[in-house]
C-alpha cells in the first residue's frame, strides 16, 4: 500500500436518489471540484454507496492511480465504513478517505435554499479535498478479546441473555443486586395475553441459570467499576455478605422459621412481612437465605442468634465480610430493568400512599399471587376485605408532559389483565377501566382485549380522572367524563388500581456513568440506532436487553435479550476486536511531561511514564476513543490525533474560513 508523493484526488458526489440532488446542483459541484488542486477526476452518481457506485471508485483508483478519495454524500456515520472497504478492495489504505457531508449538513437543512445549498456543498467539498491531500495511511488496531461476558441484571432479560451466551459455549457472569434472580417478572401472577402463570414459565429458566456450568451467578452483588474497552473490560463487583455460607447451606429454611423478627417485605412491595433472615420468595435462585444486617437483633444488640442455634448444617456466619471480585470480560450486556414512577410524591392527586385502598398494578400482582402476602386471595389493603367495585386508571404518570412523556407500553394490557384478576377471583365484583387509548398492539393482545371487553362486569370508560377523593368515612370516589357516552360519571370504588409509568431502574444511573453510555432525555439507555441497531450502545461491546433501553413487554424484552446475546456471541467468537486508528499519539521527543493531558482524558487512556529522569505521556491506544481533547490541550504540540493532525485540519479550516 504505497502512497505516491504527489496526491491524486478523486471526488465522488452522490445524488442520494433525490435526497441531495433535489436541492443541491450536483453537476455544478462536480464541475467545481474538478478545478480544485490535485483533483484528477470528479464524478457524480445517483447512489455512490451501491455496488456500481463503489465500483466506479475502485476502477478509478486502479486505472487512474488515485491515492486520495473524497466522497460527498451522507454523514460518515452512515457510509464511512462502506467506502473504507471500497478503498481496501482497490488496494488503497482505507484511511486515505475523506467524506463531505452534503446531505445532513446541506440538502436536508437548506431544503428551501437550493442556490446557497449548492454553494455550501462546494465549500464542504473544497475543505474535504484540502484535508484529503494531507491524509496519511493508518493501520487498523487489532487486539485479542476476552472470551467471556458479563450480564448486569438478573430479570428475565438478563436470564435469557446469560443462557443464550452460556449455551453457545462462553462463560458468563450474571450479576444481580437482589438476593434472588427473577426481577419484576417473578412478582407477576400471570402474564398477558395467554395468562400463563408467570413464575411457572420463569422458574425453569432460573433453575437452568443456577445449574449451568458456564454461568457464574453473583446475586446480592453490585457492579462497582468498569474499566477498559471492547474485548477487554475489567469489572469490579462487590458481593455483599449474606451471613450464610452458601456452600454449606442446604436451603432448608429452618433459620427463616425460627427467626423471631419481621419487617416489611421488599419483594411484596411492603404489603406483607418477611423475617429478618429470609428467602425473597419460595422459588428464589439461589435458594440461600439472606440475613438483613440492618434489622438483625444480634447485630444491633448482640443477643438472639436463633438462626445460628437452629441451623442444622452450621451455615450461619456472622463474620462474613463484603467481598470484591474482579473479572475480565470481552462484552457486557445491560439488563437493569425498571422501577415504577414515584406517584406517591409526584402525583398526590390520585391519593396513592394517602389512602390504603389506592394501589399500583404491581401491588395487585402481589395481592393476586399465591406466593404473595394474601396467599392469592385478593383482599384490599385497607381492611383485608374483598373489593367489590374496582376502578383501574391507566396512563398514571405516562404520556404526560409534566411527568413521563412516553408510553409505558404494557399498562393498557396489564390493566385489562388486572380486570381479569378481579372478576375471576371475585365473580360478583365490578371493574371499571378508565382509559385514554387502549394500545393492545402485541400478538394476541387484541383478542385478549376483546375477551375482557365482552364481560358484563367489566366497564370501559374513555376518560381520565383528574383527582381521587376520600370522604370522611374513608370511602373513595371520583368523577370521570366518559367520552363514549358523553356523560360525567361518579365512581365509588372500594379499590383503585393505578397503572403507573415506568422509569429506568435507579441502579442504571451509576452504571451508565461508569460506562459513559449515552442516555436519552427520558433516562433510558440510548441505542445506537432506533431501528437498525436497537441492542447496541455508543460504547463498543456494551449491549442492551429489555427495559433498560425503553419500556417494553415480556415478549419484546426476551426477543431483545436474545438479540443482545447474539451480538455479544458474535464479538466473543471473533476473539479479536478491531478499532479505528483515529487515536491520540504522542511524539515523546517533544513531550515536556507537563501532564496537562492526563486529567483531561475522559477515558483514562493517558498515563505518564518515567523517561530519562523526567516523565512523558503515553497513550493506551485501546482505551482512546479519539475525542481529541488531549491534542487540543497539549501546549508543546507533542500530542496529535491520528487522522485529525494539525497539518490536516488547518488546511481544511482555512478553506472554510477564507472562502473561495
Amino acid at each position, binding site marked *: 500500500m504505497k502512497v505516491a508523493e504527489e496526491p491524486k484526488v478523486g471526488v465522488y458526489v452522490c445524488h442520494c436518489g433525490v435526497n441531495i440532488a433535489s436541492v443541491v446542483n450536483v453537476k455544478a459541484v462536480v464541475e467545481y471540484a474538478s478545478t480544485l488542486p490535485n483533483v484528477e477526476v470528479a464524478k457524480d452518481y445517483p447512489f455512490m454507496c451501491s455496488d456500481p457506485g463503489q465500483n466506479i471508485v475502485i476502477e478509478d483508483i486502479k486505472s487512474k492511480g488515485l491515492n486520495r478519495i473524497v466522497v460527498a454524500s451522507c454523514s460518515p456515520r452512515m457510509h464511512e465504513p462502506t467506502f473504507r472497504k471500497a478503498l481496501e478492495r482497490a488496494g488503497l489504505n482505507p484511511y486515505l478517505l475523506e467524506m463531505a457531508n452534503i446531505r445532513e449538513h446541506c440538502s436536508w437543512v437548506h431544503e428551501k435554499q437550493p442556490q446557497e445549498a449548492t454553494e455550501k456543498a462546494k465549500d464542504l467539498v473544497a475543505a474535504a479535498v484540502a484535508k484529503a491531500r494531507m491524509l496519511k495511511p493508518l493501520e487498523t488496531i487489532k487486539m485479542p478479546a476476552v472470551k467471556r461476558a458479563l450480564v448486569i441484571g438478573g430479570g428475565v432479560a438478563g436470564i435469557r441473555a446469560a443462557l443464550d451466551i452460556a449455551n453457545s459455549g462462553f462463560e458468563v457472569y450474571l450479576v444481580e443486586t437482589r438476593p434472588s434472580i427473577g426481577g419484576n417478572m417473578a412478582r407477576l401472577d400471570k402474564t398477558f395475553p395467554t395468562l400463563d402463570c408467570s413464575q411457572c414459565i420463569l422458574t425453569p429458566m432460573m433453575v437452568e441459570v443456577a445449574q449451568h456450568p458456564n454461568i457464574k451467578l453473583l446475586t446480592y452483588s453490585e457492579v462497582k467499576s468498569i474499566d477498559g474497552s471492547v474485548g477487554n473490560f475489567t469489572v469490579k463487583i462487590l458481593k455483599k455478605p449474606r451471613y450464610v455460607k452458601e456452600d454449606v447451606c442446604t436451603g432448608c429454611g429452618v433459620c427463616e422459621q425460627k427467626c423471631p423478627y419481621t419487617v416489611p417485605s421488599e419483594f411484596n412491595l411492603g404489603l406483607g412481612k418477611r423475617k429478618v433472615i429470609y428467602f425473597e420468595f419460595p422459588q428464589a435462585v439461589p435458594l440461600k437465605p439472606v440475613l438483613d444486617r440492618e434489622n438483625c437483633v444480634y447485630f444491633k444488640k448482640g443477643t438472639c442468634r436463633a438462626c445460628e442455634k437452629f441451623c442444622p448444617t452450621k451455615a450461619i456466619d456472622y463474620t462474613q465480610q463484603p467481598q470484591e471480585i474482579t473479572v475480565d470480560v470481552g462484552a457486557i450486556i445491560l439488563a437493569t430493568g425498571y422501577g415504577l414512577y414515584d406517584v406517591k410524591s409526584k402525583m398526590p*392527586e390520585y391519593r396513592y400512599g394517602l389512602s390504603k385502598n389506592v394501589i399500583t398494578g404491581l401491588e395487585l400482582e402481589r395481592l393476586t399471587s399465591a406466593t404473595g402476602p394474601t396467599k392469592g386471595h385478593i383482599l384490599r389493603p385497607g381492611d383485608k376485605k374483598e373489593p367489590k367495585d374496582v376502578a383501574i386508571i391507566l396512563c398514571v404518570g405516562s404520556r404526560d408532559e409534566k411527568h413521563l412523556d412516553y408510553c409505558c407500553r404494557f399498562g393498557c394490557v396489564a390493566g385489562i389483565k388486572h380486570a381479569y384478576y378481579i372478576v375471576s377471583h371475585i365473580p360478583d365484583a365490578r371493574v371499571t377501566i378508565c382509559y385514554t387509548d387502549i394500545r393492545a398492539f402485541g400478538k394476541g393482545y387484541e383478542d385478549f382485549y376483546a375477551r375482557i371487553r365482552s364481560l358484563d362486569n367489566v366497564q370501559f370508560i374513555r376518560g381520565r380522572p383528574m383527582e381521587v377523593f376520600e370522604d370522611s368515612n374513608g370511602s373513595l370516589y371520583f368523577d370521570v367524563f366518559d*367520552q363514549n357516552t358523553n356523560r*360525567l360519571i361518579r365512581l365509588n370504588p372500594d379499590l383503585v388500581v393505578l397503572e403507573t409509568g415506568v422509569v429506568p431502574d435507579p441502579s442504571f444511573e451509576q452504571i451508565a456513568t461508569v460506562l459513559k453510555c449515552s442516555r436519552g432525555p427520558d433516562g433510558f439507555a440510548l441505542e445506537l440506532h432506533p431501528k437498525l441497531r436497537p441492542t447496541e450502545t455508543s460504547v463498543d461491546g456494551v449491549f442492551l436487553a429489555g427495559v433498560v433501553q425503553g419500556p417494553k413487554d415480556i415478549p419484546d424484552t426476551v426477543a431483545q435479550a436474545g438479540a443482545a446475546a447474539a451480538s455479544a456471541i458474535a464479538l466473543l467468537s471473533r476473539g479479536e476486536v478491531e478499532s479505528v486508528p483515529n487515536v491520540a499519539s504522542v511524539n515523546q521527543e517533544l513531550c515536556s511531561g507537563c501532564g496537562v493531558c492526563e486529567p483531561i482524558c475522559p477515558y483514562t487512556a493517558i498515563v505518564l511514564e518515567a523517561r530519562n529522569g523526567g516523565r512523558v505521556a503515553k497513550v493506551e491506544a485501546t482505551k482512546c476513543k479519539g475525542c481529541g481533547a488531549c491534542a487540543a490541550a497539549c501546549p508543546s504540540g507533542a500530542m496529535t490525533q491520528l487522522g485529525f493532525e494539525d497539518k490536516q485540519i488547518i488546511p481544511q479550516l482555512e478553506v472554510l474560513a477564507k472562502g473561495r
Partner: protein
Amino acid sequence: MQTYAQTDILDAVRGVIGDHRPEACYQCMKCTSGCPAAKVSEYKPHMMVILTKAGLAEEVMKSGIIWACSMCLKCKEYCPQDVAPFDVVTALKNVAISKGYRPPEMLVGMSNNVLDYGCIMDKPMTITTTDFEEVSRKSLGLPDIVHPKDMEQFKKTVARFGFRRLS
C-alpha cells in the same frame, strides 16, 4: 354536512396563548373530569379545545359557554399535554371581544365597575354562605377589600393594558 376548516380564530388563539397549544391535545378528558363548570355546560373543556383545533371555535364563542369558566386553573395544573383549556378559553374570550361578541350582562357590569371603582363591585362586598346567608367580610374575620387610593392613576394604568369600557 359540516366540514373542518382552518380559521383565523385558531391563529388568533395561538397568538394569545404561546406554548399551550391546542393541537397537542389527545382528548384524555382529564380536564373535563375535574372541571367544576363542566357539570353545567354543554361544551366541555376538552370539546372547546378540540373544536378550536378543528376550526369550529366560532360555535363555542356563539354558545357563550366560554364565560362560564370559573378560572380555577385545575385544567392547567393537571393537563398531561400542557394544553391548558383555561388558556384556550381565555384566548377565545379575547377573540370574542375583538370580534364584537358581548359577554353576559353581569360580566359587562363587573367589568365596567372595575373601570369606575377599581373593584368588581362599588360597595364593600358581602359573602354568601353555603346556607345562602349574606354576611359581612368582617364577621368572617376577612380583611376589607381596598379600593385604589388614586382612581385617576388607576384608570390611566388599566387603559395602558387596553382595558376598555364595554357598552
